[in-house]
């Protein structure tokens, strides 16, 4: 129950922990058996994350972000799911553990902040118990110590009069408060890795920033690593050390945040960036939406999954799946005709001439600017 480790056992991981990444995901794949067929929600993802760093995982709805982080944690339904690949966390392969062993890791070493605090907090259980139950059952605190810790936690995530709040039910709090409570719950047992699944999606813009600041502060204070999942590149721009862009269950580009924003190679990343509202855009400027929809993951076509929506698409993209290659140290992308490359330029002008929708839209935007 408690996080007791014998001295010897603790010594060895500690030595290696300093050098190894906290989390190393190798070729992780998760698929669901559904009535409509097998859904490949995550399809061969590899990632590394160092201690106290932040990785932003970005992609549209349905790109497999949520399933990815749940697969990393092992927090998947127990039937109809196939998961393969390795998840090496602090020296152990979580993929090899059963739920019984995973449960020892959950909450205490690895915790999750869910997308919608309204549905992720139990509506008929007081905040106090939802917060103290893991302190008592997992960290082994007694009732009084658990309550004191809970008050301190609520205070640290910026909740006023925390002691009274313990007696509240979730519906009695505002959306921002609920999300703060959820963060406090996730932080309760001092995890080394926090998985935040679109923690601000349901919130007002001003509250979004506050909640993200709380996450950032807590992360720094606790030197905790974090995976921040979002569909909004703007959210991770200033808060992530590196970014992985997901599309149709795969990582299609990953690099440090600066590199992604400076020299994105993948047309999809470029398209995502165009969809961020900009302060320097002329008034009334239209946000660039990405034409089309993400593919249905039951019938992933051969070739690049983004090809049908891509401005740089060529014949090759439709027939051959581009591998994830390292174009510069630490910068990976999966594209035959990367943005800024001669192949890319050529493909784009050909498509523009042919009147491919995606290419035309981009060109029109350039003209208006």
């Amino acid at each position: 129950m408690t996080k007791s480790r014998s001295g010897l056992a603790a010594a060895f991981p500690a030595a290696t922990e300093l050098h190894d990444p906290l989390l190393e995901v190798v070729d992780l794949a998760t698929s669901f058996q559904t009535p409509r067929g097998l859904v490949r929600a995550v399809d061969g993802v590899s990632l590394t994350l160092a201690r106290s760093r932040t990785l932003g995982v970005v992609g549209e709805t349905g790109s497999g972000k949520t399933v990815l982080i749940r697969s990393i944690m092992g927090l998947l339904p127990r039937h109809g799911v196939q998961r393969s690949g390795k998840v090496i966390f602090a020296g152990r392969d979580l993929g090899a553990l059963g739920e019984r062993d995973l449960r020892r890791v959950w909450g205490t070493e690895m915790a999750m902040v869910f997308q919608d605090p309204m549905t992720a907090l139990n509506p008929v259980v007081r905040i106090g118990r939802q917060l103290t139950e893991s302190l008592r059952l997992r960290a082994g605190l007694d009732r009084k110590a658990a309550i004191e810790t809970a008050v301190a936690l609520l205070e640290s995530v910026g909740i006023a009069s925390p002691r009274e709040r313990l007696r509240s039910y979730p519906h009695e709090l505002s959306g921002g408060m609920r999300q703060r409570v959820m963060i406090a719950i996730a932080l309760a047992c001092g995890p080394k890795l926090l998985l935040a699944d679109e923690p601000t999606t349901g919130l007002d813009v001003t509250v979004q920033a506050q909640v993200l600041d709380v996450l950032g502060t807590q992360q720094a204070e606790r030197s905790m690593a974090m995976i921040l999942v979002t569909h909004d590149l703007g959210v991770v721009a200033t808060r992530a050390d590196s970014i992985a862009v997901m599309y149709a269950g795969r990582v299609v580009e990953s690099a440090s945040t600066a590199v992604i924003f400076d020299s994105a190679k993948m047309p999809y990343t470029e398209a995502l960036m165009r969809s961020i509202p900009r302060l320097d855009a002329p008034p009334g400027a239209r946000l660039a939406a990405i034409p089309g929809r993400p593919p249905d993951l039951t019938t992933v076509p051969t070739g690049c999954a983004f090809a049908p929506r891509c401005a740089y698409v060529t014949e090759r993209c439709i027939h051959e799946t581009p591998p994830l290659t390292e174009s510069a140290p630490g910068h990976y992308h999966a594209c035959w005709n990367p943005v800024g490359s001669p192949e890319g330029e050529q493909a784009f002008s050909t498509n523009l001439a042919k009147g491919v929708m995606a290419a035309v839209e981009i060109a029109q935007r350039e003209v208006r600017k």
Partner: protein
Amino acid sequence: MPEIAPAATPERPSAAVLGRRADDQPESPNGTRRKLGLLFWLCLGFIALVVFGAIFANVLPLPNPNLQNYSAVDAGPSLHHLLGTDDLGRDLLSRIVFGSRVSLVVGFGGIAIGLAIGGTLGLLAGYKGGAVDTVLNGASFVILAFPPLLAIIVVVAFWGRSLGKLTLIIGIASIPSLFRVIRATTMSYANREFVVAARAMGASTRRILLRELLPNVAPAALSFALIGVALIVVLEGSLAFLGLSVALPTPSWGNIIYEGASNNLLQTDPLIALWPALAMFLLLTSLNVVGDRLRARFDVREGAL
């Protein structure tokens, strides 16, 4: 509890993870709903058989259900009397087939009355809302607050227990429950796009109720109605045991079971009570299975009952 392996998880992972809501009646791979299953059709078949027997009881080659044949008293099943005879030498099969008329008339007739009045009011209240709804809903609450069986027993005892009166009383008693079910179902459709669209195009209330809402409410109503019929069949049996079903010697399933269970007949000839009890059990199972499958298929929450 021992090893609690796959407990607290969604049974249907994809749905939960991908944010869709699962019900316990999964879709088949080709996207259509799962088939109703053999049991459903068997049960429907049994209901049809009972209905057929009740309608054509006069034409079928059956002896008079009240004919007392003293040369064959308490006879076991034979070619002449397929299910045997009772203590008065009456043919049991014939009594059961004729007796089904009472159960079916009271059951289906009662529900028909309940649906005609309660259903119509429910559609109206669910669609119109406002004062109509407040008044009707309040009234249904007050009436439902009264123990229904007590009311039925008192009225039947003092007013009379002919088949027509029984049907009418039970039908009236079923109005408030059916009203509530139909009202709730209607409300879930009342503000859907197709209704709003019809209203925007200037369709009359009557047209919206009949053309837009009724077809959508009907499946749920049907499944509740079938389960209601089952409840009424039991009710008729209960009344018979209190001596309040149709007057003897008219056979009804309740009456036959009651007669078979009295005068120590259970010890001497348990078959007299057993056959009609079995028939009733099968009919109730069939009604419940058909109603339940329809409910699951049309995704009506059980809690709404």
